[in-house]
């Protein structure tokens, strides 16, 4: 498959938005979206980690394929992600302790964010080249970030209203997510094909 970069981007960013249409990164999507500032920081950290780990995974996958060791793919990817998270943490800690204090608690959470693992898996399955993989990683993580912030914004708004006690919490968040997801259905078919 030789998809154009633009199409890869639109597809991963809007049409098959990781969070709203493919259900990846759900735990953080539901758990860390009560405040816009938190959601935004988490989103940005995820963009960074996904992009770096996607590029690293791409290289690693070439090595694995060369040695016919595809069965180690999953374990390698997860190690790469854990290492990226760890390195990011160390790097930020050294360069900007302030940012580290803000992001500190979110970074370890990224390791168990399946959106991060899904990007290398998908790019391998779809046979993307390095450039395509990078664009895909940026679009997917950007889409994740956008969905997080959108949900956090509407959740902050519902905080100002009198939500019935029954619906407070996850149920309301899910309804919001489902309406957002319905809104995203309008993007289907965009960006090519046609």
């Amino acid at each position: 498959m030789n998809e154009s970069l633009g199409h890869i981007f639109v597809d991963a960013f809007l049409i098959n938005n990781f969070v709203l249409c493919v259900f990846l990164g759900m735990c953080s999507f539901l758990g860390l979206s009560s405040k816009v500032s938190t959601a935004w920081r988490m989103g940005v950290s995820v963009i960074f980690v996904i992009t770096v780990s996607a590029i690293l995974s791409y290289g690693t996958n070439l090595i694995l394929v060369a040695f016919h060791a595809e069965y180690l793919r999953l374990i390698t990817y997860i190690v790469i992600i854990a290492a990226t998270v760890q390195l990011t943490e160390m790097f930020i800690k050294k360069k900007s302790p302030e940012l580290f204090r803000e992001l500190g608690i979110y970074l370890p959470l990224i390791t168990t964010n399946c959106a991060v693992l899904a990007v290398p898996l998908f790019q391998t399955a779809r046979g993307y080249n390095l450039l395509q993989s990078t664009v895909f990683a940026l679009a997917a993580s950007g889409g994740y970030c956008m969905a997080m912030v959108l949900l956090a914004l509407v959740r902050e708004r519902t905080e100002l209203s009198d939500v019935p006690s029954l619906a407070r919490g996850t149920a309301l968040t899910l309804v919001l997510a489902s309406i957002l997801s319905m809104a995203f259905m309008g993007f289907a078919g965009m960006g090519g094909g046609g």
Partner: protein
Amino acid sequence: MSGTTIIEVRTSPHLHGPMTVETIMRHVIYALLPIAAFFSWHFGLSAALLLAVTTAGCVLAEHTACRLSGKRSTVNDYSAAITGLLLGLTLPPGLPLWMAVVGCLVAILPGKLLFGGLGSNVFNPALVGRAFLQAAFPVAVTNYTPGLAANRFVEFIPSTWAVPLMKPAPLNDWLAKVAVDGFTGATPLAMQKFDHIYSELGPLLWGLGPGSLPGCLILLCGAYLVARGMMDWRITASMIAGAAATGGIFHLVNPALYPDPVWVVFTGGLLLGATFMATDPVASPVTPRGMWIYGLLMGVLTVLIRNLGGLPEGVMYAILFGNALSPLIDRLTPPRPYGARKAQVPQ
């Protein structure tokens, strides 16, 4: 005066303007009635019944839900009736009534009451109901029947009375009986998009094409609300402007594929959406600059979805997306408070 007069102590202001939520909502209904009347006249009995069912459905759903949760019923603010009317106007006249009821339930329960009722809904409830129906029953909600059928005041469109949960019976026989030559059931937008057939603009202005409402009438009704000071014209104007401008650019790039701006504005639900749905105050920004951005964004998005996406119509999705963005827009466009530009005086 006697010293024993009991005086009430209230805090200022001691005057209040004439406007109340209830009056505004009532006038929105007045403004919607001509459109509803046209819809019923154009499509006949089924359309009138559909509107009645959606309106009654929304009102009843709200009333019952409020009662069940032990609260005062909030139907007397008329907002549920508006939701019902708007929902009905966005549906094809032959839609099975049971689907319309499902739409009402979705619009009112998760679309509105779950958030805390009037004033708390993040999205326009009517559009939530419509989007649900669109996603749940994609065939039924895009299946338009011809307007002005000769016997429309005598008999119902057969699909109206479909058994709940069941598919409506195919309309072929009925269509053969009533249809005007060459009727395909496609809306002008779908015909333009998939077959590159342009409907004439004239009938569209007066709403005589299939599946479209009279643009001029909608604008008039909107103008009534604006004149009464009950609606903000900025959102409507900027949404139309955004759609027209984007449509214009597409048209300039490829006139064969993309319609001209006037056509863009007067087809589909754009005018109804821009006038009555995007302007839903609850789900739109409150800041003046925010309103312009919000409207433009929705207009642009509508045309992008229409021209680039897989669907012929994009107003509903554009407005839902705009609703989701309105808290962000509000946050990014705070009005500049008086005296804030200059440096603060050190105390």
